[in-house]
């Protein structure tokens, strides 16, 4: 298959970028989208040109590195798939494909298609953890978890932190990501001790990173390679309201609460 690529090229975080046009020739239809770029890069390197920089690691949809906007759609045309799980057979022969990095003030472009998503790490650091006592491992069934709770917690925990939700959101909101991280702990007994402190801290960090707000367009859910539901946003908001309503001024420190 043959394609014409329009790819965002940007030398570094400070320089201006632009869309460059490349021919992707003789691409096998069962090549993944990343393999297609690999082939184009081989040709670029053979010609002594700078290859297209893109982030990738697992190439099986679990690490969340391979973030790119493909023809205006985060992770491209396949529902519930990361870019690395999209194959060229999903495109038409001869198609012009535009490839851009995530666009968010919180995700600065480092080079070409590579963005810095450490804003997500800082949201997790703010409260996306539980405190557990050290010592011997506890009995596996000591804390009982209802099947429905563990299922919905696992649905939220499927988040790979790729940033597609932010990228696809007209507002550049990180509500689906933050909501998923909050929900997967809030739906389990282990997450309860710090539940309301957690939502307070993580939401504050999310805002500090200058992500936008949630209008409930639903674009995040449609873009998510793990198809995480906007239900997690409702849970986050409810817990945030409870956290604010029950907060007492002397508990302003980082200690657990709730």
């Amino acid at each position: 298959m043959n394609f014409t690529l329009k790819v965002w090229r940007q030398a570094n975080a400070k320089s201006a970028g632009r869309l460059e046009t490349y021919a992707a020739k003789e691409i096998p239809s069962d090549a993944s989208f990343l393999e297609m770029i690999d082939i184009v890069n081989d040709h670029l390197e053979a010609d002594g040109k700078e290859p297209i920089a893109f982030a990738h690691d697992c190439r099986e949809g679990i690490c969340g590195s391979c973030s790119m906007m493909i023809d205006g759609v985060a992770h491209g045309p396949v529902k519930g798939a990361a870019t690395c799980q999209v194959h060229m057979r999903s495109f038409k022969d001869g198609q012009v494909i535009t490839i851009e990095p995530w666009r968010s003030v919180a995700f600065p472009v480092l080079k070409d298609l590579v963005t810095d998503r450490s804003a997500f790490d800082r949201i997790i650091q703010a409260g996306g953890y539980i405190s557990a006592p050290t010592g011997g491992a506890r009995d596996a069934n000591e804390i009982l978890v209802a099947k429905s709770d563990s299922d919905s917690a696992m649905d939220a925990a499927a988040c790979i932190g790729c940033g597609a939700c932010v990228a696809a959101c007209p507002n550049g909101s990180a509500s689906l990501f933050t909501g998923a991280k909050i929900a997967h702990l809030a739906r389990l007994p282990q997450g309860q001790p710090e539940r309301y402190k957690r939502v307070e801290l993580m939401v504050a960090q999310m805002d500090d990173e200058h992500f936008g707000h949630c209008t409930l367009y639903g674009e995040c859910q449609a873009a998510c390679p793990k198809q995480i539901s906007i239900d997690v946003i409702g849970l986050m908001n409810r817990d945030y309201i409870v956290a604010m309503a029950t907060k007492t001024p002397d508990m302003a420190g980082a200690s657990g609460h709730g």
Partner: protein
Amino acid sequence: MNMLLTFWRSTIGKKVVMGVTGLIGLGFVIGHMAGNLQAFSGAEKLDAYGALLHGPLHELLLIARVVLIAAVILHITAAYQLTMISRAARPVDYAGRKPQVSTLASKTLKWGGVLLLVFIVFHILHFTIGTVHPDFVDGKVYRNLATGFEVKWVAAFYLVAMIALGMHLYHGAWSSMRTLGLARQSAHPLKRYLPVALAIVISLGFAVIPLAFLLGVLR
């Protein structure tokens, strides 16, 4: 006080304020629509209803007005600030972003909201204060409707505004439940049934009045 400030400063807090004030607006428009529909029972009935609100119930009317004005101001302030925050969240835009599931209602929420604001101001000057009405007579509610809607573009503006209201509520009545964390978990969270019915009933319930005068059903 501190918490209230933290809450208001957060994007979720502002959005919750929008949801609550929007629902106050929804409650009001349902009541207002029901009141208006008395026009179909004749001039005496409608004028008597107006007299009731301005006479025995005038304290209630005053409270409602204060609450509604506060709600509108908060709603608009939050809408404006959130719009600015989110605009700043994407300083470099895409060459092309293709929305997958956004509804027309969600895409037009902001400009539809601006239209509603213009409408609300016009509407108050038109039927409450009477300054932009061609021939306003205090207390003659039905007569003011009839003469007011003789101006064709005014009647048309009312119809357009009611389409905007219906769209605003098609999104808002649904999204506010999620903003406030009241919606139940759902396998299809974007599906909505009650908000469709609400939007249609409310926008039609208001629109039938100018339509009836335009078509000569009421005169």
